[in-house]
């Protein structure tokens, strides 16, 4: 992984001191809350329903065990002993105290971490594929480019006050795991006809109240021009993005209003003026960063691998876990292991400090001391030898992290909702919990197969409900919580936006509605057909008929 050099470190240290001074001034009453608010937000400190919330950036989700132990220590010392992984591969602490926030940032800086720009109208945490560097058919490691963009986007003097927040994802595999098409800018590593590696640039994707799928603004961009092109694109957005209405300020609205061709023309003009300037990436720097993501020394597949095979035959629980949570690796003898943070005991994405410590130890023992967070709020060990799978499974099981449900219906993306969030219309965590309980039978989950269920507590769509095969959106009806269901969304390379299936359901009825949808699918699917494929084949009607018999009868 990337290690800070002296310059990276100095910037973060200086930032901690700057923030310490700001907090001191605030506590002393030298600045008002109104003046302080933008400063704390620029350091990831929000004021939520009940307390402050600190969002810690995890660049492209990659954590060393040293960092993870530090997060555990921080959660224990300054918070209530747990943290929450978000859909931007970040970690949120829900109960930090204002006066301790500078200490937390100082502790983070000790392990090359910070919370800069995890909030505010600027670049947010740059995300990348959690299988980067180990996926079988990858073109190139997306972490390299995410790191290059991370540096360029940090405290950018021109773009720290954009019309609205700005999210960038990078993926290097044909199979997209980053929701790249739902980002303000999505970067897809591609090969052109000549076999050169570069980028396809997508723009204008997003969730929120106006979900949109990103469009290609440049089919192929040579590597060395990545930053100059981004700078040109951001410059046009900074000048032309709407600032009169917060809900129309994201770049997707600019793309929509201008049209992709017009925007493309403006960006190309700007880019032509700056592309050969100091932003052109020198090969030395690309190499310096690439080297830090170089593949490890792979070990030869061990004979003991057979042991794991035998256990698999003998032990159905282990076999289930291997089938569901373990994925193929590009290197023979290795496996990618997903750790599920979707258990019945805690809200989706939550981990306790003890679990963090435990994960850090296991990562050291089994996965080169590295853990990765995914946008689906799970964790990944990317370097596990197949021979170790059985031991690892037992250890994860003890930590409560071996639920074999990754990619299944109970692997729910869920935003914090009304339990924490000041903007929420309805609770989302309890709905996720009730759905998980309803579908707790693993055999049934496996029979249902791959199904992405996503829940947001309000139209801001932090729970990505638009991109859920089944999406659930909390709405407030005169003080009562209701839930609107969308079907057919998808966040992968064939992205689609879910369609509202009909009137919203009360909190009491929403789980039953999900049950009805799932049963409808099971009844009408063809052999081996996944939920999304069935939906795409038959459309919404069969689901509607079963969900709203009164309505469809009346219409008939």
């Amino acid at each position, binding site marked *: 992984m990337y290690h800070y050099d002296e310059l990276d470190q100095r910037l973060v240290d200086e930032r901690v001191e700057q923030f310490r001074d700001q907090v001191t001034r605030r506590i002393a009453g030298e600045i008002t809350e109104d003046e302080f608010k933008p400063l704390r937000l620029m350091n990831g400190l929000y004021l939520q329903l009940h307390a402050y919330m600190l969002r810690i950036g995890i660049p492209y989700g990659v954590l060393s065990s040293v960092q993870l132990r530090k997060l555990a220590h921080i959660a224990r010392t300054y918070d209530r002993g747990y943290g929450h992984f978000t859909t931007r591969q970040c970690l949120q602490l829900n109960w930090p105290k204002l006066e301790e926030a500078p200490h937390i940032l100082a502790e983070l800086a000790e392990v090359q971490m910070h919370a800069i720009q995890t909030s505010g109208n600027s670049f947010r945490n740059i995300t990348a594929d959690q299988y980067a560097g180990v996926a079988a058919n990858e073109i190139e490691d997306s972490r390299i480019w995410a790191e290059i963009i991370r540096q360029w986007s940090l405290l950018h003097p021109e773009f720290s006050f954009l019309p609205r927040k700005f999210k960038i994802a990078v993926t290097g595999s044909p199979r997209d795991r980053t929701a790249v098409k739902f980002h303000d800018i999505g970067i897809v590593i591609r090969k052109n006809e000549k076999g050169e590696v570069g980028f396809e640039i997508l723009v204008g994707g997003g969730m929120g109240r106006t979900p949109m799928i990103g469009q290609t603004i440049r089919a192929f961009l040579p590597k060395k021009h990545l930053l100059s092109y981004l700078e040109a694109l951001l410059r046009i957005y*900074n000048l032309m993005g709407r600032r009169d209405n917060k809900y129309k300020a994201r770049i997707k609205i600019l793309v929509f209003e201008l049209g992709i061709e017009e925007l493309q023309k403006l960006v190309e003009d700007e880019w032509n003026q700056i592309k050969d300037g100091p932003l052109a990436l020198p090969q030395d720097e690309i190499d310096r960063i690439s080297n830090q993501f170089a593949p490890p020394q792979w070990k030869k597949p061990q004979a003991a691998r057979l042991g794991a095979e035998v256990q698999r035959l003998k032990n159905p629980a282990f076999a289930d876990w291997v089938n569901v949570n373990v994925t193929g690796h590009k290197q023979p003898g290795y496996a990618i292991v997903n750790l599920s943070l979707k258990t019945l005991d805690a809200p989706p994405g939550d981990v306790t400090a003890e679990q963090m410590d435990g994960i850090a130890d296991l990562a050291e023992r089994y996965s080169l001391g590295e853990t990765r967070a995914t946008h689906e709020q799970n964790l990944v060990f990317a370097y596990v030898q197949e021979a170790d799978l059985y031991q690892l499974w037992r250890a994860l099981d003890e930590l409560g992290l071996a639920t074999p449900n990754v990619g299944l219906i109970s692997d729910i993306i869920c935003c914090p909702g009304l339990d924490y969030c000041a903007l929420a219309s309805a609770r989302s965590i309890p709905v996720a919990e009730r759905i998980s309980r309803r579908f707790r039978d693993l055999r049934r989950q496996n029979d249902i197969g791959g199904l992405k269920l996503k829940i947001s507590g309000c139209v801001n769509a932090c729970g990505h409900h638009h991109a859920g095969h089944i999406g659930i959106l909390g709405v407030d009806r005169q003080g009562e919580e209701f839930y609107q269901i969308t079907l057919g969304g998808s966040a992968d390379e064939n992205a689609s936006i879910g369609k509202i299936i009909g009137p919203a359901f009360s909190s009491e009825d929403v789980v039953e509605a999900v049950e009805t949808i799932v049963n409808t699918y099971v009844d009408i699917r063809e052999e081996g057909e996944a939920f999304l494929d069935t939906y795409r084949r038959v459309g919404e009607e069969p689901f509607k008929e079963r969900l709203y018999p009164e309505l469809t009868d009346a219409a008939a």
Partner: protein
Amino acid sequence: MPLLKDGKLIEDPWTHIPDEVAVPASGPVIVGLKRWREERDSLCKRKDPVGVRLKSNHTAGDVADDLEHLGVVALAFPAFTDGRAYTNARRLRERYGYKGEIRAIGDALRDQYLFMQRCGFDALEVRENETEKNWQEATNAITVYYQPAADGGKTALQRRHPPAA
């Protein structure tokens, strides 16, 4: 209103002339873009210098052809969250090679001074209680830059890979 110019608090030698007020016969003045366009010839004939005020929805291109006549381009921050002026300042310096004063007017946080300086601002109209010390602390708070900008400050990348001597 005091002016922070190159980090020093000075008496502002320039006078802002609101659109509805007549331009005085002498003294350096800053006028709005509309007036500049309408009265360009007479303004250029004055013996004292003239500057132009741009709103945040104007662009550097609006005055690109006039820069040789302008002693100041004042860029408005109607709210500190409106970041368009940063782009306009960079374009004035980097694309159009403007060497005169670029000043910030309007709403600014102290923590933005560094960004302003990096984007090419060299002057800033400030509140009565603002101090040189604040400017200095703010612009020295962070000393590592990843981005090339109008100040020509050395970037992390240039420090990592110094050009061969």
